[in-house]
């Protein structure tokens, strides 16, 4: 039987995959998916800790995180769309007008 510590470890793993993914990938949409993965890892840990502490607040917080993530999706996709339509590319390497 997996115990709570396994879920926490899984969530830490997911979070790390997301965090490393943001650093090594180049497509803005993929970066964005990695960030969402980080948020969902946080959700998993929240629910696990809620169970561990016998406290419902953690589950309610997971709701809040989901809603915030949705708002972030809308704002983020709108901005990425905006830049994609002018440049025909979602690679962050091509966004290079600003440097130094």
């Amino acid at each position: 039987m997996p115990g709570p510590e396994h879920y926490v470890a899984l969530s830490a793993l997911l979070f790390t995959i997301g965090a490393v993914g943001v650093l090594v990938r180049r497509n803005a949409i993929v970066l964005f998916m990695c960030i969402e993965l980080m948020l969902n890892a946080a959700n998993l840990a929240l629910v696990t800790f809620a169970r561990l502490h016998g406290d419902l607040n953690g589950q309610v917080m997971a709701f809040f995180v989901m809603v915030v993530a949705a708002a972030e999706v809308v704002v983020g996709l709108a901005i990425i769309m905006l830049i994609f339509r002018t440049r025909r590319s979602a690679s962050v390497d091509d966004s290079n007008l600003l440097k130094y």
Partner: protein
Amino acid sequence: MTTDFQLPAIDYQAISPLLILFGVACLGVLVEAFVPRPARRRVQLGMALVGVLAALGAVVLLAGTNVVTAGGSVTVDGPALFMQGALLAFGVVALLLIGERRVEPGGAFVAQPAITVGSEADQRQASAPGATEVFPLAMFSLGGMALFIAASDLLTMFIALELLSLPLYLMCALARRHRLISQEAAVKYFLLGAYASGFFLFGVVLAYGYAGSVDLAAIHAAVDTSQMNPALLYAALALIVMGLLFKTAAAPFHVWAPDVYQGAPTPITAFMAACTKVAAFGALLRVTYVAFERLAWDWLPVIGVIAVLTMLVGAVLAVTQTDLKRLLAYSSIANAGFVLVGVLAVGRTGASSAMFYLVAYGFAVLGAFAVISLVRDREGETTHLSRWAGLGRRSPLVAGVFTVVMLALAGIPLTGGFTAKFAVFSAALEVGEGWLVIAGVVSSVIIAFPYLRVVVMMWLSEPSESTATMVAPGLLTGTALGIGALAVVGLGVVPGPVLDLAHDAALFLR
């Protein structure tokens, strides 16, 4: 089912500034929907200004309040009120800059940002009046910042963080001129900001795992009593502080700042530089002083190294800049380091010096960006240093204001910058953090050079063909400039009242 549910008591007066800000923001959305287009800008600007001033009035009326309300999610105490007051004062000035339409025909914002840059429809809207959605966006962002400072549990803090960030990401993309750069800044800011808030959130979750609650006071209590693995606590502290330091633009989390400051429309850059900094430091002070104070010996050296790094990176890279907006971005990074020195002098003096620094810096940087929005050529704003040579001969008054602001940022005596630097350094010396002061003084000297170079170029060079023109400021920008310059000089000549106010306010309620 349980039946002993009690609605949390809400002290409506204590949260009235927040309610006013959010109420005006929601009304702003309604205005956008129902008021005819020609009248919108006046209505929006008037409503936003009245709203922010009313909220400021509410904050003043609340002076001396010390309550935790709304089910333990909002703390209204001295530091919260002081920084909300500063935030709202900056908000008024930033709104004046956002509302300006005289300098650039139609304003600094584009009407339909979704239209592809360079298309025919885009050329048609080139001189159309700009979007008025920035006002509700700015109000939501201001409300989020005010909540961020006063949040007394980490979940509220996270929601406030998103609430202040999301409108900022959008506003970054709205520039009328140089829109490709502006959109690129928005993408960079969004991706990095969302990344940082992911770290912040995971830190919140780990703190919840450790303490069984996200309440700051409960975390403080759990530091001694919790049975959980302390690794959770340290990881939580590291991740939360990382998320907050990102918003303050401290090295090594500063890489977004220069690009975003340069790309965003200048009024929004001013708004970000002054207001976001106050909000982020307010939250950082609250988290470190209230929740993690017992770990101070663990985080002091780490944040100390970050502070030194921030000051030096900001100062050294500012020297190499040729673009004024980028220069001010690096200066804002260096200044984040100076405020951190105040934060690290844990205690009442440290907190009050950091708060005073934020006030002095905010007014100076608002004044600086107000001037930048006035120096233009046919392409829009000209921010390259060489184009500013000789401006002092052409428009002595505005160049004079810019000189005062630059001297304040450089920390020359008789300006707010000097008093502020003196306050943070003496607070750090008082608690025996001499190494921070040494690094601070060294980087103050380094960063004085680029500021003074701009001043020398403006006054001592002859105006030439390539010198940009200074547009006469309209009423709104003129007022903003006046407020900025007066505040900078006032804080330098008679700093006593504000210093005392900061000192009286600098006790956190746990």
